[in-house]
């Protein structure tokens, strides 16, 4: 089976200026990253702010252009941004953001917005579109009488349902969700996560699920990639990666998740600040915060390589079989 979408050696460099007269500094948001997603598979992307998760999501859709590397969708190279072919392809891949209020147009009713992709891509007759909107609203758990509501008349959870219904309208084969439940209360979050899982299973949609919340990712993704400063540092099945993390960074992430009833004592609290992509450390980018860093970590960048079946990691200590003590 060929991957639905495949990213090869993606690089994205932003230029930032500290002041109006200072020289622009390159910021490597995504740095030589490769990732593939099979049809119907859910891949979770986790990492701290500034690790390049969102940039990666945008690059997979072709919204952010890659400076190097390529994105292959369904066996074909991603057409250039705003081209005719790209617009046509966008029906097949959709994006769901964190803030549903910002993603919705305040002056349109939600049924109009859910039907908008159908209008844009010219799918179906007027009657069929109406029927499809009704069907979508039912699928995401919105009541028919809410069709004429405006975004501000809905709760946060309902708005996110509307955004998801809109993303599903054109029957995409890929859904990219960028922190879709982070702004929701835990009770509502569970509703939306269950719904996403059901919809995905019913329609066989592949999904890239970007989140900083390990618990949510573990419960929705089949495979998880952990990002640190624009690179994937560990990748593996969601059943094992959080249970037996191998990379020191993944270990620290897992350990920082507060578990109800579990006290602070005995947890590995990662010291230091989240990484600044504008000042990338030499060698392994994680070495200044890594409790196990050695000389080689400060000078040489570790390659992402297979460390066990279905698991890759970028760490010198793992590659040299000096397995990190649990």
């Amino acid at each position, binding site marked *: 089976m060929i991957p639905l979408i495949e990213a090869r050696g993606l690089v994205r460099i932003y230029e930032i200026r500290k002041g109006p007269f200072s020289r622009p500094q390159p910021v490597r948001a995504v740095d030589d990253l490769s990732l593939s997603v099979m049809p119907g598979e859910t891949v979770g992307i986790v990492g701290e702010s500034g690790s390049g998760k969102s940039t990666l999501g945008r690059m997979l859709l072709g919204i952010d252009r890659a400076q190097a590397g390529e994105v292959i969708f369904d066996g074909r190279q991603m057409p250039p941004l705003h081209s005719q072919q790209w617009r046509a392809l966008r029906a097949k891949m959709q994006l769901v953001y964190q803030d549903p209020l910002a993603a919705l147009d305040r002056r349109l009713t939600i049924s109009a917005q859910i039907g908008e992709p159908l209008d844009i891509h010219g799918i179906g007759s007027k009657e069929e579109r109406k029927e499809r909107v009704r069907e979508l609203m039912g699928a995401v758990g919105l009541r028919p009488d809410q069709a004429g509501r405006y975004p501000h008349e809905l709760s946060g959870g309902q708005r996110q349902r509307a955004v998801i219904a809109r993303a599903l309208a054109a029957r995409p084969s890929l859904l990219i969700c960028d922190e879709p439940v982070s702004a929701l209360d835990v009770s509502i979050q569970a509703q939306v996560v269950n719904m996403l899982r059901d919809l995905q299973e019913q329609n066989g949609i592949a999904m890239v699920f970007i989140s900083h919340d390990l618990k949510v990712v573990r419960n929705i993704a089949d495979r998880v990639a952990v990002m640190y400063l624009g690179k994937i540092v560990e990748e593996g099945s969601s059943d094992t990666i*959080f249970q037996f993390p191998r990379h020191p960074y993944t270990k620290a992430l897992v350990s920082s998740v507060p578990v109800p009833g*579990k006290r602070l004592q005995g947890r590995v609290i990662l010291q230091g600040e989240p990484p600044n992509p504008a000042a990338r450390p030499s060698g392994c980018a994680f070495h200044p915060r890594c409790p196990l860093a050695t000389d080689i970590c400060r000078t040489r960048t570790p390659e992402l390589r297979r460390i066990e079946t279905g698991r890759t990691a970028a760490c010198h200590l793992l590659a040299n079989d000096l397995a990190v003590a649990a």
Partner: protein
Amino acid sequence: MSTQTPNLVELRDLKVAFDGVQVLHGINLDVAHGDALGLVGESGCGKSVTWLAALGLLPGKASVTGSVRLGGMELSTAPRPVLEKVRGKRIAMIFQDPSSSLNPVLRIGRQITEALAIHRGLTGEAARAEALRLMDMVGIPDPRRRFDQYSHEFSGGQCQRLMIAIALAGEPDLLIADEPTTALDATIQAQILDLLAELKRETGMALVFISHDLGAVSQVCESVCVMYAGRIVEQGTVDQLFSEPRHPYTRGLFDAIPRLHGTRERLIPIPGTVPNPRELPRGCAFSPRCPKASNFCHTNSPRLLLQPDGSSLACVHPVEVAGTGAGKARIFEEVMQ
């Protein structure tokens, strides 16, 4: 909840209404010296409003009734100058978004010394020395160099540390932390929780920790209050509530948390949403979402009653104590770890 020692803060029948819509329905809450109390519940349950009302920080259109006593002094009727001596000095508060609480055009050192001048009358070199000590205490590396920097030169986690430093400037008896870690990355959140627990140990101040994250609350608090639709529905120690949640709402909050380990299961959401305060359901406000609700629940509002084990509960059909459900065992397992 013992009545022997005088409590630091006592809220009695605190009610708040905005434009005639009641959002807080009589809160009774005690905070003892050195206590660490967590306040949990979904957004819109009145967690923040409770403390904003207690400190007189709500806008003028809010009508607040009830009593707020701080060490025997009544605050609800106190004139403004008295309140201003309390706020920031005896009771300090930190908020979710540190970068919007700091002044972007003032140097950090100046913002800390300002608080020191107001609350402790320190000026000049003494204030500077104390500010450097506070910055060091909250874990800002190299405080001397960073004293003259602006807030944008600090990361989100460091801004929250600075907010805590400013809050500590008045040597408060009580620190109210309103979702202090919600906007931070998990690794930084763990650092801030660690810092709060450590500061509490060192200074002996009381802490009220407002959060929707049950995990975070259990890291720093000894007792927990669960709020729903402007009422306290369950109250007890962390151990009581986390091993045996009695209120179906508390139980629902636990069940909704996705598990990091174990087999991948369907999540268990609480159906529906928090009711709009304008259209509160009759009877128990949670009854429309409650799996155990009976006809009685739809017509009668339960009172918060003291239980034999010292906890309090407002429910007529609580979750069984000796429950055999798999969910209970699961929560218990994690407490035991």
